[in-house]
């Protein structure tokens, strides 16, 4: 099949060593390598979920685990203040970081001239995305806890996590805005409309799916972050749902505090808390993915 030297229409086959079987084999090898990559990832994830589920499911469904305040005993009490804290943290992060991040990205892409200093800012924002979260925690401690005098409260933690989310939101929003075809902008400008009308009606709707991908990634990272909140001073024991200017709990802190306890049983409630944290992140992502689908179909 590869070498049909006899037929008339392959008179020039002497000029080629086409080796089709060999080339197809190389392609197959790569396909299998990529499949292995996928399976390794899935296997590790499945193992983790199975392990956590095995340890945590019984505690998760214990009455009161989701609705009561913590207890000294693993078989009593619940993680309600931590759930409450994480949900409020997530909402504030979205409310604060998304408008600021998308605004910054719009300014850099649509308004700022393409000069050396915009390139410099771009590199620095990308670098910020790689800064460890404990460093953001120290920044938040200095600015929100001390300078602004909020102390170790929910609002300090939320604003710190918002700072942590900003670089990724800006970088992905810029990519999304840059991927909007210029033909769309030209069409709008060519009809006698202003820059803001063009951005509002064409650039943003087109870019929203990409922007939301960044929001999902960064808010998930913020919600799962413990290090920065340790520095800010989140606590592991509360008997009430905190207000914005009160001491607060969060799920990653709760998990951290459970797994550091030596008594048996705390490993199980830690696993159950992890399941709850995963669920909270999935739920937030679900909303974002729903909005993203809505706008993708609109294209």
């Amino acid at each position, binding site marked *: 099949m590869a070498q049909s030297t006899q037929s008339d229409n392959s008179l020039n086959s002497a000029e080629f060593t086409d080796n089709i079987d060999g080339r197809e084999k190389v392609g197959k090898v790569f396909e299998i390598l990529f499949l292995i990559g996928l399976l390794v990832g899935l296997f590790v994830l499945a193992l983790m979920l199975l392990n956590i589920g095995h340890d945590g499911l019984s505690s998760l469904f214990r009455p009161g685990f989701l609705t009561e305040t913590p207890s000294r005993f693993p078989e009593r009490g619940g993680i309600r203040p931590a759930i409450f804290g994480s949900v409020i943290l997530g909402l504030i992060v979205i409310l604060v970081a998304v408008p600021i991040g998308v605004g910054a990205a719009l300014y850099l892409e649509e308004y700022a001239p393409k000069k050396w200093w915009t390139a410099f800012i771009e590199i620095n924002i990308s670098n910020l995305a790689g800064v460890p979260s404990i460093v953001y925690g120290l920044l938040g401690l200095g600015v929100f806890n001390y300078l602004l005098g909020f102390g170790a409260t929910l609002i300090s933690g939320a604003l710190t996590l918002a700072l942590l989310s900003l670089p990724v939101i800006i970088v992905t929003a810029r990519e999304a805005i840059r991927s909007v075809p210029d033909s769309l902008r030209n069409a709008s400008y*060519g009809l006698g409309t202003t820059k803001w009308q063009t951005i509002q009606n064409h650039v943003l709707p087109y870019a929203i799916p990409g922007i939301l991908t960044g929001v999902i990634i960064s808010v998930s990272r913020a919600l799962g972050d413990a290090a920065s909140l340790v520095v800010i001073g989140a606590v592991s024991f509360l008997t009430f749902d905190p207000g914005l200017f009160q001491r607060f709990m969060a799920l990653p802190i709760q998990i951290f505090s459970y797994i550091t306890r030596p008594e048996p049983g705390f490993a199980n409630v830690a696993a159950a808390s992890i399941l709850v944290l995963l669920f909270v992140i999935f739920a937030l992502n679900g909303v974002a993915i729903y909005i993203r689908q809505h706008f993708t179909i609109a294209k």
Partner: protein
Amino acid sequence: MTAQSTNFQEFENPVFTAEGVKVYYSGFLALLDVYLQIPKNQIIAFIGPSGCGKSTLLRCYNRMNDLIPGAKVEGILNYHNVNIYDPSINSVKLRRQVGMVFQRPNPFPKSIYENITYAPKANGYKGNLDQLVEESLRKAAIWNEVKDKLKEKGTALSGGQQQRLCIARAIAMKPDVLLMDEPCSALDPISTRQVEELCLQLKGQYTIIMVTHNMQQATRVADWTAFFNTFQDESGKRRGKLVEFSPTEKLFNDPTTKEAADYISGRFG
């Protein structure tokens, strides 16, 4: 006025008068002093090889060059006796009167209805939008094809229909001039013929300036044709210039310049 190109024509009440228009891209002089008047309610074709500056000049008429980083225009370009490159002129207002149709059809990824109404709404149109949509689509000869699916996406139409939708969208702004940048280069022959017929229907009401690579198209639709060419200056850099502006029939049958004669007969480069 100094007339630099051959056959400089003066018209009564010209729509545009270019007096020594030069265009630079990042400091590079891409188009040499253009002296050109555009007559009212006619179709004017710009022809010439790639890089001759015909699209560059077209984008001067509605200041779309402003959007290209590094582009700079010098000289005077009068639109009804007002220099549109005067700092006091707002390009948004100019573009409302000088509409543009692009090389590739670029309808908005919104409904056909919204494609038409977007710009009038953005400009505070006070009339009846439904009427405006019907009128614009009728003028663009696409009403019968889309009247039952105004809520569907403009991007779901065929290429030729998309381009006529883009023309309808430009007409909805009730412009004075329509600029067309190779409007048929992405279309099949049937759609091309439809767009050409449309241009001929529209020319009584609008001044149409059309860049085209297709010389037959220029002979079919244009009343006047401007021939642009590239040339090498002393330093070996290629730049564009306006060579000849004549009635289309004259340019194609009895061109004044040898360059135009060579280009038209295919003895070129």
